[in-house]
């Protein structure tokens, strides 16, 4: 059964790199994976999306992911301007990089609870984790490693060891800190 992920981030935040690391990790688990960004010129700060598909055989479809099982929002403020939950499957999950509680986000739920929604909402402050391990700056924390740790935990798609094995090809500096941040997010996510 094919699983699909959609990452939402801002140019420069590492959504595309995160999608590639995910695909590489899936490959290490001997799965077929496809990763690609929204095609266009890469512009710093512009809203970008990146996609990952995972399956047990070669993936033929090449159009962008419209009905994801998992949505990852790397910059919570984007929720105001980008319809991040579009097509999110019933029983799916949205992971948001934020300090706020899940119920604080309004996805059409009227009460201050996510109980009635057809998907799970999980929040985790990845910026704090990244900064704790010295990744990036206050202004621009580098969260692509921790975001994957959190996603691995809440999705069960891939083992954190596989992600750690995939990191060196995509993260040129501070590898150890990235690994630690990834594992810290894995521990913390969904608590």
């Amino acid at each position, binding site marked *: 059964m094919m699983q699909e992920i959609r990452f939402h981030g801002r140019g420069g935040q590492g959504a595309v790199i995160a*999608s*590639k690391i995910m*695909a*590489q990790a899936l*490959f290490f688990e001997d799965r*077929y*994976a*496809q*990763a*690609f*960004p929204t*095609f*266009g*010129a890469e512009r710093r700060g512009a809203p970008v999306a990146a996609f990952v598909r995972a399956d047990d055989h*070669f*993936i*033929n*479809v*090449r*159009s*962008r992911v*419209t009905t994801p099982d998992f949505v990852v929002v790397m910059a919570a403020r984007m929720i105001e301007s980008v319809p991040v939950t579009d097509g999110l499957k019933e029983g799916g999950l949205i992971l948001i990089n934020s300090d706020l509680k899940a119920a604080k986000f309004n996805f059409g739920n009227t009460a201050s609870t996510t109980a009635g929604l057809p998907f799970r909402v999980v929040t985790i402050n990845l910026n704090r984790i990244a900064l704790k391990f010295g990744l990036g700056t206050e202004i621009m924390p580098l969260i692509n490693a921790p975001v994957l740790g959190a996603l691995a935990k809440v999705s069960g798609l891939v083992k954190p060891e596989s992600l750690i094995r995939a990191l060196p090809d995509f993260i040129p500096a501070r590898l150890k800190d990235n690994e630690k941040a990834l594992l810290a997010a894995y521990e913390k996510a969904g608590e």
Partner: protein
Amino acid sequence: MEKSAILLGSEAIAHGVKLCRPQVISAYPITPQTHIIETLSEMVDRGELESQYIKVESEMSAIAAVLGSVSAGSRSFTASSSQGLAMMHELLHWYAGARLPLVLVNANRALGAPWNIWSDQSDSFSQRDTGWLQIYCETSQEALDTIIMAYKASEQLMLPIMVMIDGFILSHTMERLMIPAQEMVDDFLPPYKAPYQLDPGNPLTFGGAAQPDLFYELKKAYSATMQEALGLIDQVQTEFARKFERHYSAVMHCQEGDKNSDTAIICCGAMTGTARVAVENLSQTEIAVDLFKLRLLRPFPTTDLAAALKGKKRVIVLNRACSYGVGGTLSQEIRTALYHLPDRPIINDVMISLGGKEVFPETISDIIKNREQLSETECNWL
């Protein structure tokens, strides 16, 4: 040993090129091709690939540089896209006329105006008549394999080959593939031995003036070589399949309908993958169609195509390039090839995408479902 990997399409192509050991690489960056030559330049820089990497200031110079290096007997490589390929146009004619081998990878992209960087096959379709062979690829694996086969065919025919991938859709997508072992590629593709080359010790004249009658005869011979190329490419693909166990042909039957299926759809490039999903989904709703992909556009595999589509009542052609004032460029090619069949099928000319307009499986299945409404004479725009 062949090894499994997961790579971007552009990286896969760079690996394919590296396996062929080109002695000279010259190219000018252009989105979405840039990653290919970036990866190659890094390979050269790290010493993994022993090659002269010539930096140039335009695509015109890139093609001119390899025209020179191949004339001097080197296996060479270049890549481009869109406006870049258009800029090469003059020398594309010259290159083919010079009867020199080369593999050029083109990442298909639209030509402006208006400004657009996305996938569209107009750039290479408008170079159909330059005398180059053209091969369109569906996956990164196919592109990697095709480069290896293309060098072999090109050097045997002394003709240049253009290998196409859809910009972004293949170039920027990471997917799993097998990288052939170097020894096997070396065995399949021995070093290039130029039958004639620039050599001060043994002077020859290249591309001198030809009087009308001679010019005509040369072009007649060129045309005959293109016909021979069909057989040779078949042969190379068969040899490749024996060695690497991956099968390719000029026209490929990708998805079979049932025995009574009288409708076929045909397209070329990465869209075939999405079409596979569409046809598969439709087969569950009991609409059975056959899916074909055309790999070889030049020389055109008329006989193979006629044989493949024989007996079909309807052929839906999915176009990603347009000859304005006529319709889909691929449709014209298919029509011409099928004209001689005793029971000519209906040809539905569909302009499915230009400039990166997204093709979903539903886009294709909706066309098939509503096939009765499609025009048989006019180009069908969505």
